């Protein structure tokens, strides 16, 4: 998931985790960038957000 690109109907930049009150910034690839980024190499992440 690419937090820098909005879904047509909502922003993907922040999230609220269950049990937490404040929103937090959503991380690239849901925080698993180190593990999975290589799988998406060469993909247009603006299109496949």
């Amino acid at each position, binding site marked *: 998931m690419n937090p820098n690109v*909005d879904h047509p*109907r*909502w*922003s993907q*930049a*922040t999230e*609220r985790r269950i049990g937490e*009150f*404040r*929103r937090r910034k959503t991380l690239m690839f849901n925080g698993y960038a180190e593990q999975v980024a290589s799988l998406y190499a060469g993909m247009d992440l603006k299109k496949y957000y």
Partner: protein
Amino acid sequence: MSRPGRIALKVAVWALCLAPALALGYRTAFGSLGANPISFVTNWLGDWTLRILLASLTATPLRIVLGVSWPLALRRLLGLFAFFYASMHFCVWLVLDHFFDWREMGADILKRPYITIGMTALALMLPLVATSTRRAIKRLGGRNWQRLHRLVYAIGVCGVLHYLWLAKKANPDPYYYAVGLVLLLGIRGADWARREVARRRRDRATSPAAEHAT
């Protein structure tokens, strides 16, 4: 209507309009707000804003259709309560949902039509609230005041569009509100057209130009 009757009516409207807020307080206190409390509270307040707003718009259609005029006296109370719920709806979004994250909210207002139009509805309510006192009616003059307060039709349209645009397609609720609003405004429109036709006919009947035209 008698004075005690009017007072009883207003007390009843106060009670009915405060009930949703009290029920929400009760649910908050006892933790029965569901899995997503913030969205529950937001939706609850938005629902009641629309219901009370539409209720305030039923006074004139009731007079037109049934010829009863006592609901007219409740419009201000209902309008102010609609504003009360709308402001709480807004505050929940501002504080609980986004916690003053101005950048996120600014982007949302500009980018998402349902938020833009919701903000528009709230902004349009402000001049009506500010001129809701008897003094304001006097200062503006009845005609100007009435013209200004026709903004409530625009507020109704914006409010219903706000809900139509944000709801998921499978949710039929916004359409009920839309049908209600169309009905309430349609009755006014039909009545206006009927009076306009009658006025023109009367004008033609009394105007000498029409009689002697060659």
